[in-house]
Structure formats: structure tokens, C-alpha cells
């Protein structure tokens, strides 16, 4: 058993329905965020390449998947428009 932290990312479509386009997952063991979703999606490709700001602690520089929890907890600030929306960091216990 191990603890899994995750953030879900939703996109609003033309008909005003939200579609989940990715789940960002982090386990205590790995320390690197993994992405479940279409890796060819423009948003997923871009965020891996461009990174995101550290909104929470206002530290200079950008955060990337390898920043683990720091990256995960800033996704909700990065995706906040309504057209794209991320959840807060949630957690659940999963099997190894």
C-alpha cells in the first residue's frame, strides 16, 4: 500500500461540458509527477516543456514534473480560467 497524490485537469468543450484531459499523479516513492492522459494533447506537451510558475510560494523560476509535489500543488493556480480547471491536490491509498 502506498499514498498516491493526484490532480485532475478539466477542459470546457464547445457545448460547455467539462472533459477530463489528464490526471497528474505522484507517489511518495517516485518524487516525479506522471501524467495519465493523451500525451499528444497540446496542453500536456506544452506544460511538460514550458513548466509552470510557483504561484504558491512565489519562488523564482519554473516548476517541472520532476519537482514533484511543488509542481502538483501549483497546477490549480496555473489552470484557473474556467476553460481549463485543475483540482486541488487529492490523495488516496493504492496498492503497490
Amino acid at each position, binding site marked *: 500500500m502506498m499514498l498516491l497524490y493526484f490532480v*485532475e485537469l*478539466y477542459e*470546457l468543450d*464547445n*457545448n*460547455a461540458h*467539462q472533459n*477530463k484531459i489528464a490526471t497528474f499523479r505522484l507517489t511518495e516513492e517516485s518524487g516525479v509527477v506522471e501524467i495519465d492522459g493523451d500525451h499528444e494533447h*497540446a*496542453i500536456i*506537451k*506544452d*506544460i511538460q516543456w*514550458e513548466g*509552470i*510558475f510557483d*504561484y504558491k510560494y*512565489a519562488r*523564482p*523560476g*519554473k516548476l517541472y514534473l520532476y519537482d514533484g509535489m511543488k509542481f502538483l500543488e501549483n497546477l*490549480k*493556480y*496555473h*489552470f*484557473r*480560467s*474556467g*476553460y*481549463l*480547471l*485543475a*483540482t*486541488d491536490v487529492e490523495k488516496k491509498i493504492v496498492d503497490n
Partner: protein
Amino acid sequence: MSEGQKFEVPPKSHDPQSVEAVLEKGEIESAKELEGYWGIQLVKIKDDGDALFRRDDATSIWFEEEGLEVRRSDLELIAYKIDQILEFNLIPTVTNRTIGEYNGSLQRRISSFYDGHSVGWENDVRPEEITRAAIFDYLLDVRDRHNGNFIIDADTDKLWLIDHDFFMFFREDFGAGARIVEKARMKGLVNLSEIEIASLERFLANVDTLMIDAKPKVAEIIKKAVDRAKILLKEGRIPTANI
């Protein structure tokens, strides 16, 4: 109707003032909270399409921690008003409104869109629109125009700027939150035409109306924009120094 100014169900009249009236007073048919952290609601307005409602209280802690009396809806509204004076038509119509017990900003939803994460968006959008968006971002000294904070109408390739909130105006400037200005510079779209010069002159002529009842932090934003408008007019282009 302004280009791209459409609702999923088109409003009865399409000029920005009519859209404003619909957003301010239209009968709300339903309000559904979207999945995600911020409690943003998709609001359906009877016979007039839908809009996104962003509650002020969801983000008020950011402002309170800085001791600011301003709220997100104030920032959304001043950005929209300045855009209207400039006549750039870059910001979807937005108003302040109370829904249920919450005050916030209600903004027309762009129904068919893709965002700045898509490779090559700058080749789809009209060059003058990139220039005007870059002028707008320079003028307001925005801090967080990343690829998710502007969208492009998928039917018309019209550019829309969104998310004029705490982080857009008050985030510490790490020098990397100005994606559209960067694109304008890369593509050599930094020179002002007669139309943009007239827009900036109109902005300067209307500053007093913007300052009426402006909260101190909003007044600061306006004053900075005045200084930057003068720089733009003097240089005839967006300065090369980073914003």
C-alpha cells in the same frame, strides 16, 4: 456583432453594451459549479447563452494577505473597460454581478476555442491583433500571460485575453509571464499603426472617467498604464526592455 462576440445561443443584440446588459440583468436559468478548485460556475442566462461566474470570495485570501481592498472582479472590470476604450475588443464582455449570496465577475463564455498551448497559434491570429494584445499587456504590465491565459476562437481565429486577476497584476515579476509580447517581438509586430496610436490617445483622454470611484490599487494600475501609454506613443513601438 463584434467579431467573435457570440454566445452559444446568440443574444438578441450583439454589441458589447447589449451583452453587458444581458450579463448584468439577464434572467439566470441555472448555475452549475464546474469541476476544479475555484468554484467557478457555468451560468445559463435565459434565451441568451451562457457565461462564467468567478466568485470574489474564492480568491479573496490572495488580496487579504497583501492587505489589498481590491478584488478579482475589480481587476476583471478595469481590464475590460480599458480594452473598450482602446477599442481593441480583446476581452470577452464582463460585468460585476451578485449571484446567490456571492459577488463576482460574470464573463461571456467563448464557446468554441483553443488556447495558447497549441503550437502555431500565432500564425492563425491576425498580426494586428497580436500587436494590440501585446500593447494591452505592456500597458497593464501583466505578469502572468502564459499559454493558458489567452484563447483563440476556433471559428474566427479571434484572440481573447482572460484571467485578469491577482496573479496577472500582482504576481512577483519573474520576467517570463508575457507570452504575447514575446511573440509580437519575435514576429516583428511591435510597431504602432495610426489605429493603435489613436487608441492610446483615446485612452489618455478618458483616464479621468476610469479613475472615478477606482479603488487605490486599481488607480495605481491606471496610473501605470498612463505612463506606459506615453512611452508607447513616444517610441511608436513596444519597447524592447522586458515588461
